[in-house]
């Protein structure tokens, strides 16, 4: 199957931080402007704008998409807002992709924004509203709670230790030291992670990404337009997304099947048969340390239960055989819900163009995969990008 070729021609993001002084609109604008500037484009060259932003409860604005429209360039233009919880930051690129691939648009500006700090006393409290109002909210769950359940199940099924999981925090926070927008880049050890406060066993504080404010944006363009705009377009070779049942309590959480399905949808589009061999860089979603490993397995980049061993062997280091989260990820750069996934897309864009500075992986990577996750441990969103234009 041949699709209209679509490429990323520009990318930009704000610093990710615990509390921004900028309003949500301003955050969106800063990222959108940075993306346009990087492509040397003006807003009137953009045919349509797409916003990805997760729950309105954080920014505290109803119909938040409408409020953010001007910050995202959606003025006197086609504009819409899409989301799938935490999966939004990668899904929004798929949405932008089919805007252009449909032929209705030649260019699109995709902006993902989140300002979580508006929610007081702590944004984590707003997550109560994602749970079923009848069967779950009375139990007063929070994300630390339910992800601890998932981590425990993953560890139990495969006999994975806490130390193996802690290594993800060490790698990603170290990688983030090279990211100019990072909130929590740091040089820490496995011992530091295990000495940190237990939030909900077996989750330790240093295994958890922060709540953050920030925005990230990319400019998409159709093939011939893309080649006029830049000498190094990064082509979207595959997109995939998959939503599982709301009843997470009835699923075996040890493996994210919905990530596998989303990944194969994207890999099939990209003509990838052996992901572990054909993907050169991976940016899986890492809101908690164990998630990177969990998602690598869902992405078919490690056999089930084997990701921790490959991590320990250095395979996923920046100079390893398959660099994973060279950006520093959510653990290191930060986690403004929707913008985090787009930060990973931006990272692949810069890495594949050799523009990742101190974070640059060696060799000449030609193909990468970004993945995000969200809802009630329920949705996988995957985008494969590369330096080679897909056949059309």
């Amino acid at each position, binding site marked *: *199957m*041949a*699709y*209209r070729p679509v490429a990323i021609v520009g990318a930009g993001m704000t610093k990710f931080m615990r509390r921004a002084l900028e*309003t949500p609109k301003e955050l969106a604008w800063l990222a959108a402007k940075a993306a346009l500037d990087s492509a040397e484009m003006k807003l009137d060259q953009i045919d349509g704008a797409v916003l990805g932003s*997760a*729950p*309105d*409860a954080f920014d*505290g*604005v*109803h*119909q*938040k*998409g*409408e*409020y*953010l*429209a*001007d910050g995202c360039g*959606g*003025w*006197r*233009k*086609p*504009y*819409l*807002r*899409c*989301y*799938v*919880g935490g999966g939004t930051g990668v*899904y929004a690129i798929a*949405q932008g*992709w*089919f805007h252009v*691939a*449909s*032929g*209705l648009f030649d260019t699109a500006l995709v902006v993902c924004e989140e300002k979580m700090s508006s929610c007081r006393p702590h944004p984590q409290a*707003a997550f109560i*509203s*994602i749970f*079923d*109002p009848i069967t779950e909210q009375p139990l007063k769950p929070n994300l630390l709670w339910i992800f601890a359940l998932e981590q425990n199940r993953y560890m139990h099924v495969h006999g994975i230790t806490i130390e193996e999981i802690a290594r993800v925090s060490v790698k990603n926070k170290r990688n983030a030291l090279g990211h100019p927008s990072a909130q929590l880049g740091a040089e820490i050890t496995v011992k530091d992670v295990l000495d940190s406060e237990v939030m909900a066993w077996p989750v330790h504080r240093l295994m958890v990404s922060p709540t953050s404010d920030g925005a990230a944006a990319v400019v998409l363009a159709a093939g011939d337009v893309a080649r006029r705009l830049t000498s190094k377009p990064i082509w979207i070779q595959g997109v*995939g*997304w*998959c*939503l*599982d*049942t*709301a*009843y997470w309590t009835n699923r075996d959480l040890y493996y994210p099947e*919905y990530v596998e*399905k989303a990944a194969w949808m994207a890999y099939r589009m990209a003509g990838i048969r052996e992901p572990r061999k054909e993907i050169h860089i991976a940016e899986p979603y890492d809101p908690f340390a164990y998630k990177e490993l969990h998602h690598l397995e869902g992405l078919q980049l490690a056999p089930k239960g084997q990701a921790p061993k490959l991590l320990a062997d250095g395979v996923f280091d920046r100079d390893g055989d398959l660099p994973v989260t060279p950006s520093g990820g959510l653990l290191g750069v930060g986690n403004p819900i929707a913008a985090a996934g787009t930060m990973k897309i931006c990272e692949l864009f810069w890495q594949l163009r050799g523009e990742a500075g101190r974070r640059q992986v060696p060799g000449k990577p030609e193909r990468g995969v970004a993945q995000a996750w*969200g*809802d*009630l441990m*329920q*949705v996988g969103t995957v985008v494969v990008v590369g330096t080679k234009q897909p056949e059309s």
Partner: protein
Amino acid sequence: MNERAAVIGVGVIAARPSSEHVSFKEMMFEAAQKAYADAGVDAPEIESFVTCAEDLTEGISIFDEYTPDQLGAVKKPMHTLAQDGLHGIADAVMQIRSGLFGLVVVEAHSKHSNLENPNAILNYALDPVYNRPLGFNPHVIAGLEMNAFLHERGITEAQCAEVVAKNRTHALKNIAAAYPMNLHPEDVESSPYLCYPLREAEIAKSADGCAVVVLASESRAKQTKSRPIWVRGVGFANDSPTLESRDWIEAQYIRSAAAMAYRQAGIKDPADEIDLFEIDDSYAYKELQHLAALGIYAPAVVTGSVGANGESCGTGKLAVNISGGSLGIGHTHEASGLYRLAEIVFQLRGEAGPRQLKKAKVGLAQSWRGVPTTSGAVVILGSE
């Protein structure tokens, strides 16, 4: 790639002021069953799903979490659009035209009766820095806009009252309508103001309901027995979200959205080439403002009266909101565009019963997302 898209199935629930006997999930399940039966497809065949919803109206954050099970979308591609159902239709059309999927479902519903204080929710849509602290009821924005629009365009309050009478009377023939009433313009003109010159009776009352639409690529549509209704064009656009910098007279978002849809449909003279219009009338004056933005009235001068059979001034007979519109059906919020689309599908198929128009080959559905937004969409359907 780039096959045209068709609506092959529609399922709607009769709009009602409240719906205590069912959850939103049960409403979605019912509408989906109807739509899939209408389309002649089974749930497992559907490849992608779109739900149009806003968290604060649902009372649940990340609303798409609670949508796949009752639509047959488990372990399938599904996402939320925080937009009206017609934006959802545009989304589905793009998915189909990209070549990614051949069978896509769009869903939207209203369970507005759940809201204890709807105006408080609406208040949260106001700009938190510049507008919300002023403490005004958001309907005031419609009142101000109506005043400016009437003044600039020479439209009268009587003409707005006629829209209410027309639409609620049309709804008498629509079994899916929540607020049918044999109304005369004088009944409206003698009713109290909410915010001058906007009268309470001119605001569409909320209703609960659900609509599911099945779209297919041309090749996929051929595999079903359903009669395809072709999507001739889609358009959507925003004007400024800021009250202080938007156009208060012209619905610019519809002028842009319509231009996009007309271009795709190859339509040059909408009043002549389109047989029926189902457009947003969530405040009565908006029907007239939206018609103008659609290019039905000349932009500089909008005069005349609106007759009981949908005739509009200066342009001869035009069928506008034969379904009863939001005033007659009830305001189903994110689902309102899909109720309008459904009416057009029924009309184009010849299945509109007592509302059936003699000539129904091309129809236009339009939506607006309500105050304080300037967001709208247009979908043009054709039987050929």
